[in-house]
């Protein structure tokens, strides 16, 4: 009951005209950027982050939340119409969305994706409303040692989950932490690892770093997709026309998609809450789960159940990921890390105290997600007739446009060419890492989490006068430590077992 009263108060904040405008703007921009093949929610949020600087923190983060949310919707558009997922969570949407479009029902496939996203997202936000403050209350009981262990778990799980190679995951996570340690010491404020460079005294600026690692690195990769994109477009029926009326779902369609939408919505939320999982894992688990249930058409051949399961799960996971982000200050994904960085830039420190110190902000943000969900659904439906035009921008024309947006965005967030140079260098590094199979998302997550981890770890050691016992002196800490060890050791054990099995097979 208390949560719902707080939510009502949150709606008072969210329904302020400037917040409604920011939410709507975020929904429109996020949808367009998310629909562009190859950009995705992470790059989309990073590229659009500078636009939020004009607003006050609450309005800015409401816009960012709407951007993030609508990016998830947008990712399915190109997956359904072009078989090019706009984002990794939309990969599973393409498996049934594109075949359904090929069967002559592209409008219905888009509408099914929109409706499933809306219902899944609503389930996710409802669960977030019920659990976030409880999680924050639990978080208040955590001391420095518990927070250190939780942050270690968050970092460990993301590095395992994103990459296929655990060692590369560790390398990239550690690199992100070291980059974050450049500048000032988190406790004493003394200069550290600035190597005599006055620009480095302020550390590596967050937004240019993110824009480079994600946005500019993506542009460099996009150039290789030009030809494939051209070929794919040549094979598409360019005269396809969509209208809202033609896209309406029948009662039978709705009946088919409702059970998988609800199932995947609930499951996706819980996947999203887990540190390190996020929307991609959510959509994959949702789709895999749907395979175990009966579908009217076989999955992978244009089954509406497949689209519903995938989209509901990824939007629910996107909403669920806000629970650990707001309550514990732990982002569940790379995009969550961008949002966390955005919050920190406005002087807000997500964590257990945020619900006490800034309740109007927390509840304003949660209530704005309901609003963003409705706005995004409306915009997503209204935009259907224009989708073919939006998606007809070839990749080759997007390359110079995104390059300039990266440069202008990096300059505008730092007001100096230093920001542009950081963006450029981190873009090249991000591209080289990606090319060599090192996933960059764990680096971003580590970059954002490192100051918190260092502060908590050092304070824990100061409190215990250097004794390691502080990490094992309660059952909760032992459980957290066990989870951390399991996460570290599981991939190693799996790898050893795989090798042994391969040897046996050879023998």
């Amino acid at each position, binding site marked *: 009951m208390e949560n719902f009263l707080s939510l009502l108060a949150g709606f008072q904040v969210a329904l302020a005209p400037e917040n409604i405008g920011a939410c709507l703007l975020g929904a429109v921009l996020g949808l367009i950027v998310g629909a562009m093949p190859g950009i995705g929610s992470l790059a989309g949020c990073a590229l659009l982050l500078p636009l939020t600087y004009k607003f006050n923190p609450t309005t800015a983060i409401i816009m960012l939340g709407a951007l993030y949310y609508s990016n998830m919707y947008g990712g399915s558009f190109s997956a359904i119409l072009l078989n090019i997922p706009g984002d990794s969570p939309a990969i599973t949407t393409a498996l049934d969305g594109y075949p359904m479009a090929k069967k002559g029902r592209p409008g219905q496939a888009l509408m099914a994706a929109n409706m499933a996203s809306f219902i899944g997202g609503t389930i996710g936000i409802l669960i977030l409303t019920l659990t976030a403050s409880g999680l924050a209350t639990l978080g208040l009981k955590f001391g420095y040692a518990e927070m250190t262990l939780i942050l270690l778990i968050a970092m460990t799980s993301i590095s395992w989950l994103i990459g296929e190679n655990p060692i590369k995951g560790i*390398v990239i996570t550690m690199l992100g932490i*070291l980059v974050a*340690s450049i500048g000032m010491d988190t406790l004493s404020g003394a200069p550290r690892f600035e190597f005599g460079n006055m620009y480095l005294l302020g550390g590596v600026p967050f937004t240019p770093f993110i824009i480079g690692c994600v946005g500019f690195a993506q542009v460099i990769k996009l150039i290789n997709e030009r030809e494939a994109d051209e070929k794919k477009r040549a094979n598409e029926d360019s005269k396809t026309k969509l209208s809202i009326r033609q896209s309406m779902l029948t009662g039978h369609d709705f009946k088919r998609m409702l059970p998988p939408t609800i199932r995947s919505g609930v499951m996706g939320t819980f996947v999203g809450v887990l540190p390190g999982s996020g929307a991609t894992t959510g959509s994959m688990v949702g789709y895999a789960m749907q395979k175990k249930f009966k579908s009217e058409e076989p999955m992978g051949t244009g089954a509406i159940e497949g689209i519903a399961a995938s989209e509901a799960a990824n939007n629910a996971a996107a909403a669920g990921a806000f629970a650990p982000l707001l309550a514990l200050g732990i982002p569940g994904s790379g995009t969550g890390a961008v949002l966390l960085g955005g919050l920190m830039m406005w002087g807000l420190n997500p964590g257990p105290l945020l619900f006490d110190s800034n309740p109007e902000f927390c509840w304003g943000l949660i209530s704005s997600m309901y609003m963003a969900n409705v706005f995004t659904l409306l915009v997503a439906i209204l935009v259907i007739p224009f989708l073919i035009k939006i998606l007809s921008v070839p990749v080759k*024309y997007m390359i110079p446009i995104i390059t300039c947006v990266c440069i202008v965005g990096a*300059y505008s967030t730092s007001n100096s060419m230093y920001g542009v140079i950081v963006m450029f260098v981190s873009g090249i590094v991000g591209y080289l890492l990606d090319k060599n199979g090192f996933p960059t998302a764990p680096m971003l997550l580590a970059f954002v989490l490192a100051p918190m981890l260092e502060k908590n770890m050092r304070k824990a050691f100061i409190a215990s*006068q250097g004794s390691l016992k502080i990490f094992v002196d309660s059952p909760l800490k032992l459980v957290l430590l066990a989870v951390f060890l399991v996460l570290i050791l599981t991939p190693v054990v799996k790898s050893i077992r795989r090798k042994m099995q391969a040897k046996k097979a050879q023998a």
Partner: protein
Amino acid sequence: MENKKKGFNLRTVIPLATIIVSLVFIVVGLKNYGFWNAQPTPGFFPIIIAVVLLASSIACFVQIARDKNSDEVKYNRNELMVMLGAAGIILCTFLIGLVPSCLIYIFLWLKFVERAPWKVIIIIEIIMAAIILGVFTAWLQIRFPMGLLGDLIF
């Protein structure tokens, strides 16, 4: 292919680079910031992380060096062109300012790399000018650098 003959795997470049980075952080950290002085010092956390990075980078290097089955990483000229294009904008910014550099870059890229028709070039130039000047300059009040030439004129 040539790299394979010489026995040098390009994939090992990243772990080699991270080994160097970790060593720099360990040495500079120990020398300048210390590790422990009754309590953790500013070097404490980065040094631990750098040691883990060193160990994992060595493991990664060995893993890649032993793996004879994976293909070499292939880089192509187009990727370099994107990087050079961005570097060109940065350099030209110091001379003619950021906004003209971006607009000239878009024109050159679309005309000579993509061979786009004039209509497309004009539309994209207008949209980008509107975004940069309308959103960033007018709305967000960003003062973009004018470059040497701009400073001389204005």
